[in-house]
């Protein structure tokens, strides 16, 4: 639909250049930040992946593709797949839990809406490690959950919940649920209420109005929420370490171990780069899908 003119006249080009220069002072800090803290580190990371490891960390400047070849080993493929799987489960659960929550909050009166939103965000103000340790206390064999289950007679022996993949899912879900609720809430809350009224007025039952109007229009918010949950869940390494007991290794742990334990910087860099690329792909897909929803199919 939008086609840029194939050949801009020199005058137009000069004008664009001037406009670009005028914007420069405003863009410079952000661009500088991105270059220093994003482009250069990622560039370094990419650079590292093509060299051999040093004995005690660092690099030996001998070109090699071994690091990339190593990725194909079943061990690492398995870890990456498991990470994707866990992050995916966490995302789906967050969506299922978060949607009704966001929907309910958007329907509250302004006063209670504020209260509910603060309640959602509140855990973020508490130290993340403390919150994670709290889960250990809750889930371990002598923890509250087991005590409670035994007290009401559901089980006689403690169920081992800590240090399982399920525990990791619970921990990640707990950690990132607000990141699902907030964008969903934002998209639901900004929906023009007259759209639902119009659907109703045209004879749609409340459920039908929800399914055909509210739900599709909140999809971009849902997708944003999914990204907000999936991306950090996939690269988290603290929760798998503490709640998963290090038994279930996710990509995040693997990267960390390569740098700190195995002292294999090049391979760690390769894993980190793969993780980054994977997440970029996910984000690009999300952006494309959102645009398609809001703007409709591309027209020629």
């Amino acid at each position, binding site marked *: 639909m939008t086609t840029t003119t194939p050949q801009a006249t020199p005058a137009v080009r000069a004008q664009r250049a001037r406009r670009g220069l005028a914007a420069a002072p405003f863009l410079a800090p952000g661009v500088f930040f991105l270059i220093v803290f994003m482009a250069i580190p990622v560039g370094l990371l990419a650079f590292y992946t093509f060299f051999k490891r040093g004995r005690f960390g660092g690099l030996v400047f001998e070109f090699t593709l071994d690091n990339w070849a190593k990725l194909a080993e079943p061990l690492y493929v398995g870890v990456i797949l498991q990470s994707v799987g866990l992050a995916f489960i966490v995302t789906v659960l967050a969506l299922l839990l978060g949607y009704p929550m966001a929907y309910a909050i958007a329907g509250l009166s302004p006063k209670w809406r504020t209260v509910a939103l603060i309640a959602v965000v509140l855990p973020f103000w508490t130290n993340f490690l403390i919150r994670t340790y709290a889960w250990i206390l809750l889930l371990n064999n002598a923890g509250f959950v087991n005590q409670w289950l035994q007290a009401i007679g559901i089980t006689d022996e403690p169920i081992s919940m800590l240090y399982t993949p399920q525990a990791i899912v619970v921990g990640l879900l707990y950690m990132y649920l607000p990141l699902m609720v907030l964008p969903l809430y934002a998209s639901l809350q900004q929906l*023009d209420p*007259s*759209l639902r*009224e*119009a*659907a*109703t*007025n*045209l*004879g*749609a*039952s*409340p459920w*039908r*109005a929800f399914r*055909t*109007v509210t739900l*599709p*229009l909140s999809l971009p918010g849902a997708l944003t929420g999914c990204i907000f949950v999936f991306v950090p869940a996939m690269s988290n390494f603290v929760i798998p370490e503490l709640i998963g007991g290090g038994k279930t290794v996710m990509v995040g742990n693997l990267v960390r171990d390569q740098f700190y334990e195995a002292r294999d910087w090049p391979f760690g860099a390769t894993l980190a780069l793969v993780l980054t690329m994977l997440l970029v792909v996910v984000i690009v897909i999300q952006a494309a899908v959102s645009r398609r*929803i*809001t*703007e*409709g199919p591309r*027209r020629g």
Partner: protein
Amino acid sequence: MTAEPLLRVDGVRAVYGDTVALHDISLDIAHNEFFALLGPSGCGKTTLLRSIAGFETPAAGRITVDGLDLLPLPAHKRPVNMMFQSYALFPHLSVEKNIAYGLEAEGVGRAEIRTRVGEVMEVVRLGHLAKRRPSQLSGGQRQRVALARAIIKRPKLLLLDEPLSALDRQVRASMQLELKRLQHEVGLTFVVVTHDQEEAMSMADRIAVLNEGRLEQLASPQELYAEPASRFVAAFIGTANLLDGEATVDGVTVPGIGPVPASHALAAGSPATAVVRPEDVTVGTEVSGGLRGTVVDTYFLGGASTISVEVPGLPAPLLASVHGATRLARGAEVGVTFGRATAVPRDPSQPPSYGTTIPTTAIPVTDAATAADTDEAAGAAGTAATGDASPAATGAPEASAPPRAQDVSA
């Protein structure tokens, strides 16, 4: 109304917290009528419309359509369709899908949906835009999609909430004609909510004027203009010189200028306001036997001119309108006489709520134009062809309409 009405609103009362939005409103609307609910923002007209549609629940009263009691029905089961002020088009659906929505909700078969959508798109001339999204349409096109979507189910009653307020002036004029045409063509009953008196006057068969939740007057546009029932209606419909005073047998005695002959049925001695339309005010250097005054300003509008005259004893200038240009200039000493005038009751305890001071720059110009265009025709049913300065034209749909009155009360 001798025939059975299509819509009957009976003693409808709406309350928000401590505020009463509607004070026991009752009115009947006939089949195939083009009916307008007119009033400033906050007068309750939208509440009434939303009560009919089922988005508000009145505290008391009955609403029936063709004898069917609406109030117990949920909104999606009422045989009433509505065109929303913002149009409320579904942004994620194409024009076609938007229009088909009502039929799909009803479970109509696919083939029938296709033919009926095609037909309706012909009626509103949208055929070529079927696949577009609402965001790719102009304001007028969106409005027609909204209209098509609302009429496709052939509702008994079509409600239109400020149908033209989001359009710019040129499009408004043509949409106004289009709505009239459509109403005749499809034979629907229209209930339009508007704060724009010109819109209501030019389109509606009958108008209910609402103010602060009360029905001020229900009449034809001609009658509203010629025989307003209250000071509010006189001020709200068209331009008027309002002269507060006391009723006498054949007019109103206005402090400062004396008796003004006016037709009325009020008791002598009761507080009253004489209503004199600008076209009933004659101004000229040779005019004698009336009041004396000084021309403050003249506004040339093409077909007519408005002259504003300061008269000693009156706190605000009088407005007069004449055909064509005027030779009178600012500062001219003139005589002023009144032609036809009516009188309406006045609430002495309440200070005049309308138009004690009017910015004389723009607003009188508009209404004088309308009045002058049509004073030979039926009352004031004209379109605002020139100088529309109403707030709706500037894109402020809920802005209250400025009082179109030149209040000369003390």
